[in-house]
């Protein structure tokens, strides 16, 4: 494609990148060098990397984000795959997105009602004589609700990539005597990888900075980097420290992006140049 058209696409997008991404990031980096009294300092970074609290928090965040992404993928991949073979698949897909239009806080409150001691699940268990279980404020409920929130964001890109699946290749693989599992592993999975990657990025990255449901459902037993930032911006008003954690998150995101970034791009690109 000609360079001139390329540039034309970049104008609105580039404008956005400069004003709404690069400018705020520069601002955040700038702020991360100021302490609570407005003096220029490196102490925020020093605190972050030397205090056990923040390191532990970082490890926790990454671990929970990983678990949440894993379960979200586990549920979403078959859903997206099966959806592809239903009648009216576009309609079903829209119906997957629809629940996300209900306010998050309201859904969290509904989950509180469902999970609580007097709530739906425990009344159900009560029918079988099982005593009320503590479900709220456990890792289970936190991961369950987090995964619930993220599932539509994972299904969508995977569904799109399944849609693009070349049925010919799938059939060819079957005709050549491959079992369903072999076909799935060696043909379908590699061909839907781009959707999985997009989904993982759309879920893992925001999961690092979850904050509200850590309190509502997790009872603040799970503290993520998002919680800490929230507190530094809204309670302590120590924007410097909050920004420092923000910078760490951004750097972590860059690392993830480069790790999941496509490697075999050069081949495709080489053809573009012709």
């Amino acid at each position: 494609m000609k360079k001139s058209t390329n540039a034309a696409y970049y104008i609105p997008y580039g404008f956005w990148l400069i004003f709404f991404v690069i400018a705020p990031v520069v601002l955040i980096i700038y702020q991360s060098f100021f302490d609570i009294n407005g003096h220029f300092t490196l102490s925020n970074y020093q605190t972050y990397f030397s205090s056990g609290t923040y390191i532990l928090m970082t490890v926790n965040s990454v671990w929970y984000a990983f678990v949440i992404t894993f379960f979200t993928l586990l549920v979403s991949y078959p859903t997206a795959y099966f959806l592809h073979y239903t009648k009216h698949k576009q309609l079903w897909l829209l119906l997957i997105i629809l629940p996300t239009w209900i306010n998050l806080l309201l859904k969290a409150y509904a989950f509180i009602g469902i999970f609580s001691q007097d709530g739906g699940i425990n009344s159900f268990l009560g029918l079988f004589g099982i005593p009320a279980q503590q479900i709220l404020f456990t890792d289970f409920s936190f991961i369950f609700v987090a995964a619930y929130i993220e599932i539509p964001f994972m299904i969508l890109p995977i569904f799109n990539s399944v849609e693009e699946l070349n049925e010919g290749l799938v059939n060819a693989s079957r005709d050549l005597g491959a079992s369903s599992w072999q076909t799935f592993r060696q043909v379908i999975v590699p061909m839907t990888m781009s959707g999985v990657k997009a989904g993982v990025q759309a879920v893992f990255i925001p999961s690092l900075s979850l904050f509200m449901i850590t309190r509502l459902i997790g009872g603040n037993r799970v503290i993520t980097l998002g919680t800490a930032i929230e507190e530094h911006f809204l309670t302590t008003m120590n924007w410097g420290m909050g920004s420092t954690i923000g910078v760490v998150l951004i750097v972590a995101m860059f690392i993830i992006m480069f790790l999941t970034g496509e490697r075999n791009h050069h081949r495709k690109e080489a053809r573009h140049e012709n």
Partner: protein
Amino acid sequence: MKTKFKWSHLYLVIVFILLYLPIMYLITYSFSDGSRMTNFTGFTFKHYAALFADTRMIQIVIDTLLVALLSSLVATIIGTLGAMAINTTSRSVVRNSVLSLNNILMVSPDVIIGASFLIFYTALKIPLGFGSVLMSHIAFSIPIVVLMVLPKLQEMSQSMLDAARDLGSTNGQIISRVIFPFITPGIFSGFFMAFTYSLDDFAVTFFVTGNGFQTLSVEIYARARQGIDLEINALSGVMFIFALLLVVGYYFIQTNNQSRKAKHQALEESEALAHETTH
């Protein structure tokens, strides 16, 4: 083959039940005579009556929808162009850097985004209100659109483009007749995701709003201090049913049209490119 199909349907049914469980719970309680989302106490419509009498609430809902529709439209346009730009960039270092920049707004917690946008607007003397909220929503919705459209662009086979070019199509024709029809599902997903982000956002909107402009999320969060009013449940119920009807209705009109079109097309003998134009 048949039994296998049923298993997959069962799986989907379970997933749908899970996805709709909390929403059904919310809507059930919108008919409860009590004032909280616990202990259902008798059937009533009073929360709906209160809702329709609440002009302030109706105004907030309209404003919220307005911001969501406009911001996701603009974000979809800019994001799609951005994805096309990234897709045609040849150097992988540049691509990856731009993609990482793209994702910054997704990883940054809302409070940071909100606070830095606020500083940004006040520095530029942009008044807070509808305009600043709209701009912010466009800004934080763009990355998800890019993430939804880009995989579609990457899947598009080069041979298809080459074929179109060999048939003598101009760049403009290729874009409108080959690329766009192909990436339309990605664009739709992007739009819906952007719409979702806009409806759900609280923290960013809170910081950048002003002069009486309020969105539903901000109102709900502020009201949560006193415990969530069942009027809000009623509102969710109404919005949800409305959205459901809209989505189902739109889908059936759409498929009806398409099947008619498809019959029409079958009658005409058309080559691949001409075929694309009727879409």
